[in-house]
């Protein structure tokens, strides 16, 4: 990914997305500070305890957040290319569906659904074809990995039929 760092000098407004990134970095630092603050009291014997390094990393993140704010005002971030939202949502939807179903429906149905929805995101529109194809492929993968290679993949109704 080589993107040019053209600065649009005509724009005076800050780069809002970069400011959001800076805020996220600061929040991560804050979470670290809050979490390790309960550790400090438990270590009195050594000058560098379990909380020291987290504090330094937290300060590093704060420093980077401030630097990012400066970069946002100076428009140091490269121009973003146009991003299509709906394909990303299809893929994320597929991953979510797999995550929710894996416990109840078993590997093949959950992952077959991921296959179909992800393929939809990349332009294969016929879900009534791609989801069954995905389930069959995943059943074959399940048989190969769980049966032959002894990898533990969760079984569901379809897998139980095979066993």
């Amino acid at each position, binding site marked *: 990914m080589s993107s040019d760092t053209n600065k649009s000098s005509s724009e005076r407004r800050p780069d809002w997305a970069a400011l959001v990134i800076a805020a996220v970095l600061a929040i991560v630092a804050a979470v670290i500070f809050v979490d390790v603050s309960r550790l400090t009291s438990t270590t009195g014997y050594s000058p560098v305890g379990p909380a020291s390094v987290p504090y330094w990393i937290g300060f590093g993140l704060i420093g980077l957040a401030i630097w990012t704010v400066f970069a946002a005002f100076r428009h140091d971030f*490269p121009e973003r290319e146009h991003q299509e*939202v709906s394909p990303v949502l299809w893929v994320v939807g597929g991953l979510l569906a797999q995550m929710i179903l894996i416990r109840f429906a078993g590997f093949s149905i959950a992952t077959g659904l991921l296959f179909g929805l992800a393929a939809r995101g990349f332009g294969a529109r016929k879900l009534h074809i791609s989801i069954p194809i995905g389930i069959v492929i995943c059943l074959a993968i399940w048989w190969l990995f769980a049966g032959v290679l002894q990898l533990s993949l969760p079984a569901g109704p379809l897998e139980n039929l095979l066993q």
Partner: protein
Amino acid sequence: MSTFEFLLQGLASAAEPMNLLYALIGVTLGTMVGVLPGIGPATTVALLLPVTYQLDATGSLIMFAGIYYGGMYGGSTTSILLNTPGESASIVTALEGNKMARAGRGGPALATAAIGSFVAGLIATLALAFIAPYIVKLALVFGPREYFALMVLAFVTVSSAFGNSTLRGLTSLFIGLALSLVGIDQLTGQNRLSFGVPDLLDGIEVTTMAVAMFAIGETLFIAAQGAQAPDKVEAIKGSVWMTAKDWARSWKAWLRGTVIGFPIGAMPAGGAEIGTFLSYATEKKLSKHPEEFGNGAIEGVAGPEAANNASAAGTLVPLLTLGLPTSATAAIMLAGFQQYGLQPGPLLFATNPQLVWGLIASLLIANLMLLVLNLPLVGLWVKLLTIPKPWLYAGILVFATLGTIGANPSVFELGMLLVFGLIAYVMRVFDYPIAPVIVGLILGPLAEQQLRRALSISQGDFTVLFTSPIAAVLLFIAAVALILPLVLRMRGRGDVLTQMAASED
């Protein structure tokens, strides 16, 4: 025993039928996955790590060596035939190789890449075998502060020395470092940043993270580019064999590429791509046919491909002798070692020499297998490139999640895969490098351990870090590597560094 005897012993162990089979499976799977567009060796290794879970340590590492080299061969095939470099180290190969393929010289381009990779892999692996014992001896005098300084140097070179921006490189590194804090503190047993979630007590799984960051993030990014015109796969016309003239023009380029690539990989300087760019520039300068560069010069494929493989073998020097991963691929390989409770480093050479030398020997064998397999089977690999995009990426996602489910079938782990995949996608959109996150995640706890050991020996006196000459020199180099690029970029001379951008591998 001498290095030579160790190596022979390793070869004997790697040549056992079962181990040969593991190596064969490794190179085949590695090439298959490495060929897929958009998938570099780091992703290949991360995706295939779970396949090796059921084997013993030796078998698994042998398969791993095959996957690693196979993934690299596969990547060069893709960049020559599809002009979609699967990894940043193949960008240069795509430059000349794809032009050759368009001119109907795809066969010789693939051949010079394959033979060049073989020659470079052979020389570099032998160099690794002969250098490693010396570095191991050196490493034995290293104390905690020297190790810490070495890791700081690795942090700087991986994150900020090369690439588009010091800020974004360092930010990626610190995200990795912050994530590395999650879990039980190794020295005091207290849990940090685990928020009462039992799944987090062991820390964030490196393989989950690598698969999420590389495979899922990349897939989301490609999805977000929308429907573009499909990339054209160049058919291989004519003979795949090189003519006498091709040989004459290639062999010096192979050797030069090896000489350039190996030291760069062996130093904690990050990825293989720097070597490929240097080799390309060298070949362009030395060529008798400079006008051909940009239009398909065979030296422009031969040199960088050799440099690429030589640095890959080079990165194994710090990994095996010091336990120091200097690239994302090496970081994932370290995770592979750790799943068997093995910590690479000088001690491993002493306590488990069969394993280390077996691994080095299998690299030689994998290299030879690839040469034999790759050219005859190139038609098969090309077929993989013609899989329509929806099925290809849906399949990649299935495989990516398969590894995580196989290692730990929990909803929480799949959730992490999704969350980190989305983070990686956003990072890609904003041009943050990915490799520093992985290196930070895996080296963070090791660096912290060494630092705290050094400081508890000195009873909290920080100057101790600079009073050892080795540590002081390493920290000084790290400081230069951090500040020099900043100054260069401020003066508008950052183009050179951008060209060497390390985005993967």
